């Protein structure tokens, strides 16, 4: 099943598949009959003009929206209607377009909270603190420090994240999602509002995460250069419908896509 990409990464079988998803809010159709899959180990981009339904799609996958029709299959199993925290516990982590961090908490605490699905001591031992709870804290703290090291954010470990500049907040949010050690990472516009240097950093982190940990990544991004460079496959949405699906090269040459979205200026 496993195939290799040009740079030698392994792409496995299907990790997540959405089938015929339709979602509407009252009379507004946000998504119409969308189907695509995400393969293990790949970087999958979802692109489309504003209002195309990209974020809605991500919200369906992460359990914030419940589609009227269609199915979500994760790791070979059909998923019932799930709440966001249940989705997180299944191994899907995400970031948000407009950043959802715990602003009053330090970077370290944000990342430690990201590991909550991995921690299992019960309330009793936590209250006692010594014993299992302490050992668990130390073990998880080590993993978190590793992530802090990886993202180069040692200097802001103890800073409340509300005080950090935008670019760093985005990085901390990525860190929190990484801390969950999820099978699938959903990134909603990880580079929105960043300058060139920050974008380059973020690109490198995304590639490194995918490479080092083998994490599957699905991302929404507006910067076409970034999308074409990063992703293995791209799905294009427009007005809630799927327009195209394929490798960056295929998508780029698709006449429908060029007409609806890329145009001359972007390509």
């Amino acid at each position, binding site marked *: 099943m496993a195939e290799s990409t040009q740079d030698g990464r392994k792409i496995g079988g299907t990790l997540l598949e959405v089938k015929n998803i339709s979602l509407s809010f009252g009379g507004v159709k946000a998504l119409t009959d969308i189907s695509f899959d995400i393969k293990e180990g790949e970087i999958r981009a979802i692109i489309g003009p504003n209002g195309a339904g990209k974020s809605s799609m991500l919200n369906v996958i*992460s359990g*914030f929206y419940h589609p009227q029709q269609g199915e979500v299959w994760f790791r070979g199993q059909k998923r019932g209607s799930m*709440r*966001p*925290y249940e989705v*997180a*516990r299944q191994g899907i*982590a*995400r970031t*948000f377009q407009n950043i*959802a*961090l*715990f*602003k*009053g*908490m330090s970077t370290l*605490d944000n990342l*430690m*909270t*990201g590991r*909550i*699905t991995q*921690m299992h*001591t019960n*309330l009793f031992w*936590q*209250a006692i*603190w010594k014993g299992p*709870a302490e050992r*668990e*804290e130390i073990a998880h703290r080590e993993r978190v420090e590793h992530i802090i090291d990886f993202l180069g954010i040692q200097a802001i470990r103890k800073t409340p994240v509300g005080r950090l500049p935008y670019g760093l907040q985005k990085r901390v949010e990525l860190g*929190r999602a990484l801390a*969950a050690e999820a099978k699938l990472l959903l990134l909603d516009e990880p580079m929105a509002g960043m300058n060139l240097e920050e974008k380059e950093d973020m690109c490198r982190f995304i590639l490194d995460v995918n490479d080092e940990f083998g994490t599957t990544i699905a991302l929404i991004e507006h910067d076409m250069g970034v999308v074409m460079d990063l992703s293995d496959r791209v799905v294009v949405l427009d007005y809630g419908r799927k327009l195209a699906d394929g490798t960056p090269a295929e998508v780029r040459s698709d006449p429908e896509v060029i007409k609806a979205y890329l145009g001359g200026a972007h390509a």
Partner: protein
Amino acid sequence: MSPDLLNVLEVILNGLMAGIMYSLVALGFVLIYKASGIFNYAQGVMALFAALTLVGFQTGQIPFAHVINAALGTHLDTWGPGLPTLLAIILTMGVMVLFAYVLERFVLRHMVNQAPIILFMTTIGLAYFMEGFGDLMWGADVKTMDVGLPSGGSTWLESITAGWAAEGSNYRGMYIDVLDLWAAGVAIVLVITLTLFSQYTKTGRALRAVADDHQAALTVGISLRTIWIIVWSIAGFVALVAGIMWGAKSGVQFSLSLIALKALPVLILGGFTSIPGAIVGGLIIGVGEKLFEYFIGGMIGGATENWFAYVLALFFLMFRPQGLFGERIIERV
């Protein structure tokens, strides 16, 4: 030191002690408000209910005895000599956790995404329900709470301070109730424990996370329902501690639920979202009302303690509506 100065010191000390009792109640409000944005009007009644239940277990009362008696014509009263204090406290805590669970399952779950005023009204309903339920369950008579805490004047403090006054004066030392000292000790331990728990444990972090951002909390896999049960259980625990202290001080009676009202000015001073604020607010109110009574009370007919806290709160509302430690309210036009 002159006896006058010592008297003022004594007044301040007693004010601090009274303030701690207010803080104990205010603490329960802050916990729930931070985690869920609900102003829990029933916090005072929860303290009353916890105290009633504790006394009930201690004295071996049969719950709902007089309801059963009235319905069936029986003469039930107690089932035995009662439980030891520690066991009764643990069982009462169990009842408060059960209460938190039932509340989440049957009330709060259906109130998600409602406006704050609706949730506030819900807790008013809850307050009346619990008061009535406590009445049905344990009877409406005034009960004495005896958990083995010492009370009466502290001879220790009296003998130490007696020597402080200048030679020749007939100063006989400060008076302070030992029970108040105990309450202060318990409150300090309680606050330190809660702080450590919220800073250094997984669940503590989850509690702070939920208080910070619901959406983000869901994303990392925190179940809001579980957190709400935990928060209301902790508030129940704080209510139990407050109920024990107030009950031991002034008996377990239904007016106990009115101490919730005294916590309101404390919250306005300290800010609804700050645990240190609840403590400091309580202390300021306690000391403020005692000093005001001591210096000015006599000139205007006394009993100023009944209203001083509310007037102070009113001034705060005019100049610093978010309280001393609360989050600044910034409204953009």
